[in-house]
């Protein structure tokens, strides 16, 4: 058997008091795709960052193709042929694609020749791997899928033989994910080695050759993918049996809660984001909005959440909402019985520097229930309540005094959910409830959403995960280019049909 492409021996890493990696050893064979799974905070990203020279290990050795290699910084990793696509992309947002690609890999002191060379090479790479991007597009103006391509191109441009991808599909649509996997397959065929971190067992089963499982900083198992099953992996990961599908009874819709008609949104640049959207939603029902990111779902949530102006009409429990005036803000929406789990928990849903208990009332901080008297908030009561909530939602670590950034993504999401669900709203807006969340937490979050429905709440679910939409929704509406392309019953539809609608192909036309 040939030399392993990568071999890590006894890697340990502590962040202050937190032991993120403990004595980890792993071997990855060349020309394979090696999956790594594990709960949020298990230490996956840390391990890969060490391999890429972003962090320095406290102890341990790294062998590349059998040769012991010191990787003190990313420069060393790059020259060892390693490329990494981080979960949070490391791109300069206001640079063009081309500038991002040449950054650090310029061919001389002046920029023009470097850019010329990169442009030519980019065209070749694009043709070879179906990685088409506009080299002159500015990063902040292109979608995350495109941004990810740029990251992959960055690695390929630097002639990486080993490619590490940290949760690459978390932000991709199914089509984009499929395409990514085709590309990864092609890279594998060329003999490149790929390490893939993901929370999605289906992806592990579909594409990897071997898979390693991490728990609490340690490597607990490495198995051949062909010799394992999703249930088995889930158990290895979480330490107990996990229910991998959503368990729910048929919906029992009651009175109508939300009625949207003729909703239009034009953004600051004058582009129409929502076009004549009409929807309705009843109590005790989950309406799933499927669609490729950037087709108006975010704007829909923002309008309903009170921070995007719009024209048209939105009624909640029969009362029209103010869509432009002084009463159109998050506070008044909450007063109207609308709760909102935003799509981006770190940007919107939480203040990362606030402690958990402070975040637990974010948006509801003026609620009389949280006031001790006319002037002051009742912090002691909020803390106590948060502690109880964290218990119910199994937020780990169970400490309301930690700041939000000290929680893993899954636990951050639980904090937001706990806040919004326990308000007992009439209408719950949920955007991307399980993005970047491990399967243990996904199970829990899905159970919560279903339980809420069963209490007779109306739930508007926006997700780019078709799986999630299909398994949670009672009705599915598909959005494309700011329009509703059609509604489907999850029982009578399938991924393919939804996928076509998401691409703007209407049922009649395709039939």
């Amino acid at each position, binding site marked *: 058997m040939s030399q392993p492409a990568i071999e890590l021996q006894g890697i340990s890493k502590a962040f202050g008091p937190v032991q993120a990696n403990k004595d980890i050893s792993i071997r990855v064979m060349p020309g394979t795709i090696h999956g790594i799974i594990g709960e949020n905070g298990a230490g996956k990203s840390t391990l890969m960052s060490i391999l890429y020279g972003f962090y320095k290990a406290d102890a341990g050795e790294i062998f590349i193709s059998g040769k012991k290699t010191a990787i003190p910084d990313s420069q060393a990793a790059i020259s060892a042929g390693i490329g990494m696509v981080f979960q949070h992309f490391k791109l300069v947002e206001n640079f063009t694609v081309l500038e991002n690609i040449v950054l650090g890999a310029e061919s001389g002191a002046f920029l023009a020749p470097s850019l010329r060379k990169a442009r030519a090479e980019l065209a070749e790479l694009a043709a070879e791997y179906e990685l088409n991007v506009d080299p002159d597009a500015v990063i902040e103006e292109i979608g995350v899928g495109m941004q990810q391509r740029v990251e992959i191109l960055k690695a390929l441009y630097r002639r990486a033989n080993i490619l590490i991808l940290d949760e690459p599909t978390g932000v991709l649509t199914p089509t984009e994910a499929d395409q990514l996997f085709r590309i990864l397959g092609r890279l594998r065929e060329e003999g490149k080695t790929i390490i893939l971190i993901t929370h999605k067992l289906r992806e592990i089963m579909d594409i990897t050759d071997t898979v390693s499982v991490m728990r609490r900083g340690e490597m607990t198992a490495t198995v051949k993918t062909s010799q394992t099953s999703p249930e088995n992996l889930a158990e290895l990961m979480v330490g107990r049996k996990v229910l991998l599908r959503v368990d729910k009874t048929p919906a029992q819709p009651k009175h109508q809660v939300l009625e949207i008609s003729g909703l239009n949104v034009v953004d600051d640049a004058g582009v129409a984001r929502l076009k004549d959207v009409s929807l309705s939603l009843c109590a005790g029902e989950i309406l799933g909005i499927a669609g490729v990111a950037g087709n108006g779902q975010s704007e829909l949530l923002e309008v309903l959440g009170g921070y995007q102006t719009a024209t048209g009409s939105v009624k909640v429990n029969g009362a029209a909402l103010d869509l432009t005036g002084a009463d159109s*803000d998050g506070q008044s929406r909450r007063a109207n019985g609308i709760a909102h789990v935003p799509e981006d928990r770190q940007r919107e849903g939480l203040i990362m520097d606030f402690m958990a208990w402070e975040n637990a009332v974010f948006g509801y901080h003026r609620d009389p229930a949280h006031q001790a008297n006319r002037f*002051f*908030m009742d912090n002691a009561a909020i803390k106590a309540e948060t502690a109880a909530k964290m218990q119910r939602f199994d937020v780990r670590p169970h400490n309301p005094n930690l700041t939000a950034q*000290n929680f893993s993504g899954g636990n951050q999401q639980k904090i937001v959910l706990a806040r919004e669900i326990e308000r007992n709203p009439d209408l719950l807006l949920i955007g991307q409830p399980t993005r970047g969340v491990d399967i243990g937490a996904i199970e829990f979050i899905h159970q919560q959403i279903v339980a809420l429905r069963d209490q007779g709440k109306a739930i508007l679910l926006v997700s780019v995960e078709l799986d999630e939409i299909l398994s949670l929704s009672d009705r599915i509406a598909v959005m494309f280019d700011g329009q509703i392309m059609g509604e489907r019953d999850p029982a009578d539809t399938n991924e393919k049909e939804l996928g076509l609608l998401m691409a703007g192909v209407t049922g009649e036309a395709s039939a």
Partner: protein
Amino acid sequence: MGVMPKWADVVLVPLISLIIAALLSALLILAIGESPVAALKLMIEGTLLRSSGWGYMLYYTTNFIFTGLAVSVAFHAAMGGLGVALVCLFIPWPHWSFAIIGASLGAAFFGMIWAGLPAYLQAKRGSHIVITTIMFNFIAAGVLNFFLVGALKPKGSMDPATANFPAATHLPTFEDMAGLLGFEKMFRAAPANVSFFLALVACVLVWFLIWRTPLGYEIRAMGKSEPAARYAGIGSVKIIMVAMMISGALSGMMAINTTQGESERLILNFTEGAGFIGIAVALMGRSHPLGVFLAALLFGFLYQGGAELALWTKIPRELIVVIQALVILFTGALTLMVRRPLERLFLSLRRGG
């Protein structure tokens, strides 16, 4: 979650930083041929061992508390001074206790207006608040100059200053207060006055405002993340306006101490230096009122100690400025230099123990 116990972070780190700054200052003093030991003795004797030393130290402290709480540049205070002067000069107050309320309102109002305009421009027009504030400082200097050379100056006076405020507006100094309590000769002639207590009250109020009220919660949220604030329905225009106006009001209040409390008339450069020290005080106090109070106390000590050095030694006043700079540098910007080795020490202690 940190490596070090909290007390080490809060007490040990600043203390060691301070000692380093002091050692460097000692070298400088040595270099110009004076004795650092004698200098330190002078500073401590003249500041902490005499009641009037305390009186001066707390007077400066009062200034720095206000500007530190406000984190503002000095000239909001200048406009506050105008407010104080107008209130004290043109309203016949029966007693200082009424006058101080009126003057506080006047100072806060003028400070607020002056801070409100840049805030408004930032909130509504996106004009960068840092430049507009710098510009408004210069404009305030012009306005103050205009009034002090013109309308507010008593005829025939040389000073670009207002007339003396009527006696009914004079604030009780520490000396007066000590006298009431039977301690004659305490705080003799020191300028510290009741506005020190006003500053303490302001500390407590600001603490409550920021950490206990929904408004403070919103100000903090807005400061950390604008998109999140938008999501939560916290209006940015409102928060920018309110926060800046509170800041303006606080720095305006500084004028109570200097103008109504000390000089008892409005003079041209009464805010000298306090603005920048205020920025340092706020950042060093980590924007926590108790921290601001302690940092203000430290600079009160340096100011009064510096005066003692200037009185009794040949140490030039510019060297005292250098010492202040070193203290700001080491306790404010170079703390990691001290914290890092300490953290390592604590980590190994913890591992070993």
